[in-house]
């Protein structure tokens, strides 16, 4: 046991020295951690806000009421008011606007006199996702407006009952999940590269002829890579808390799941490093699969909206369980049917699997 700990500590120290002799690498790790937050924010912003010019030719009180209904009608609307028709059309052609909504002159008078008032709409239908947002939002706003104005023809109204006691912003939802994505990418790559480079530089042969199993050295290296990953993630968390104003409901649980994720994804990186034996393919592989895994794992939206097949597949990725825990820790959401405890157990299972694969393959791959 003493020898095990001594080798573990020596490997940890050697890797830490190596990593901190590459300050550029450390800087890149931090940038990479924060980059993911920006990346998913962009997903959220482009998916959630359709920039729409609103031109009010009427300027009457009912037109203003109608604009209020438009603003509340759909989360997708991002109304912009400083446009005339010519300029708005130009911006649509440049891809800066998705639609133009025009309230005609005489709108307020027509409504007051119980006459139908046409609302003009120009839609850039190059992206159906965006144009459908507009097509859904507008009738909804008109219905709300009619109800508020006491239109007799409207006899149906929604009776909303929220599942949880607070709404969650889409971008916040994704940024929280992105923290475990960053943990996967940073810790997986740093650990995988540290282990694969043992094979590339053939130092693994020196380990193999020594009295202790090379896996002990690999774990020491993973722990050192974990330290750098935690530094990178700390920066990302700080950016999330300060920049995005995220207020975790259970901060300790959040810190816990991030630390567990860093360690377990480090072990997964180690298993990949042992399997692939080359640093570049390990890094490319982790980087390449990270985003699809992220999307599979219900991080783009709660898993049940993605369909049963993707949801079932998501169970085979460690990210799914980590997302389940962190969404609960930060936002109080339950995005997986499994409990937080089950999610932790599943992550522990992944750790054991990574250790087993590494143990089985290390000597085999050295001998080959």
């Amino acid at each position: 046991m003493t020898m095990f700990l001594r080798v573990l500590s020596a490997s940890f120290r050697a890797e830490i020295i190596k990593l901190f002799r590459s300050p550029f690498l450390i800087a890149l790790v931090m940038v990479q951690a924060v980059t993911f937050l920006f990346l998913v924010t962009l997903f959220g912003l482009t998916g959630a806000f359709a920039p729409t010019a609103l031109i009010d030719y009427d300027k009457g009180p009912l037109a203003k009421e109608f604009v209020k209904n438009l603003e509340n009608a759909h989360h997708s609307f991002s109304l912009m008011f400083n446009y005339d028709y010519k300029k708005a059309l130009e911006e649509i052609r440049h891809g800066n606007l998705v639609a133009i909504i025009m309230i005609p002159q005489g709108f307020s008078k027509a409504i007051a006199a119980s006459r139908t008032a046409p609302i003009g709409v120009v839609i850039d239908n190059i992206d159906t996702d965006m144009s459908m947002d507009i097509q859904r939002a507008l009738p909804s706003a008109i219905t709300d407006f009619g109800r508020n104005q006491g239109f007799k023809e409207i006899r149906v109204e929604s009776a909303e009952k929220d599942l949880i006691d607070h709404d969650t912003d889409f971008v916040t939802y994704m940024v929280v999940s992105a923290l475990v994505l960053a943990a996967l990418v940073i810790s997986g790559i740093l650990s995988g590269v540290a282990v694969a480079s043992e094979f590339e530089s053939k130092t693994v042969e020196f380990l193999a002829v020594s009295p202790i199993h090379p896996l002990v050295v690999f774990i020491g290296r993973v722990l050192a890579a974990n330290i750098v990953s935690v530094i990178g993630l700390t920066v990302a968390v700080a950016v999330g808390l300060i920049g995005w104003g995220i207020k975790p409901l259970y901060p300790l649980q959040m810190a816990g799941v991030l630390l567990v994720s860093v360690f377990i994804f480090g072990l997964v990186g180690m298993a990949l490093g042992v399997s692939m034996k080359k640093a570049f393919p390990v890094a490319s592989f982790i980087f390449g699969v990270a985003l699809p895994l992220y999307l599979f794992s219900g991080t783009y939206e709660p898993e049940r909206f993605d369909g049963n097949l993707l949801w079932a597949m998501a169970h085979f990725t460690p990210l799914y369980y980590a997302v389940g825990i962190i969404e609960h820790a930060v936002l109080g959401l339950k995005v997986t049917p499994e409990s937080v405890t089950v999610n932790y157990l599943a992550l522990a299972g992944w750790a054991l699997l990574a250790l087993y694969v590494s143990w089985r393959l290390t000597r085999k791959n050295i001998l080959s």
Partner: protein
Amino acid sequence: MEITVAFNKVDYKIGTTTILNNISLDIKAGEITGFLGLNGAGKSTLLSLINGLRNQTSGKITLLGTELPSDDGRLRSKIGVVFQETALYEELTTFENLEFAAALYNLENTKERITEVLELLKLMDRKNQIVKTLSGGLKRRVAIARGFLHDPQLLIIDEPTLGVDVEARHAIWSHLRLLKSQGRTIIVATNYLDEAQALCDMVAVLHKGRLLTTASPDYLVSRAGYCLDVECDAEAGEKFIDILSGKKGVLRADTTPSGLSIFLKDRTLKKQMLDIIVGTGKINGFRFRSPDLAEVFKSLQEKNDHVP
């Protein structure tokens, strides 16, 4: 004398390709044994069967009384290995590399032992230098230092002077001789006959996975003959061969692009042969040298017998 490593009818195959064929060999304790052969002869493979990086396909290998393959960590702690490609951690300093190795072998008094080894290999002034900034010769010395840091009973070195300059080469040889004088058993794999002569008590000559012979390096050289290279034109060369063939003490005479090479049984015959040649025709120059490895192989294959 005690046997450190014994090979008994050992084969090693990769798929259907035979890499080592029917090797039987005893390596004695306290000696430097050389595995001599051209590239691809199987020297490094033979070393890797001893250090456990490969397992033999058939036959029996005994290392320090234990049959291989073995997973015994205590057995591995009794051997030190210096790899052809050094396998050092390039981003760490010399001292840090040795410190890491000391942990792997669970050494006590680490700093004292590292200092002792660095002083022995004259590396103290490179102690804090990052390995990737060292020359090839210095890296080899660091690798050798790491190989015997834990005071192994057996030190295995693959190509001890590969890619190092002449000065470093002689320094490495003298360090290895020093280790031998301290009672260690050393196995080296080398391409160079002069290295085997400078270091080894015994050499095992390998060719295409077969053990051609085991003998002392001096015996191999004398068997191939001391070589007299003569520079002359082709016509004179043919004439010299006719005259010298069958002369007592002449083992062989071969034409070369610059004249001919005459292999003599004894160094003392040099003057006698030169007198005959100069009296027969015109030469442009001559030199006397030891045979090279290819010439040793040729002599072994021509005679096709075993040397005691």
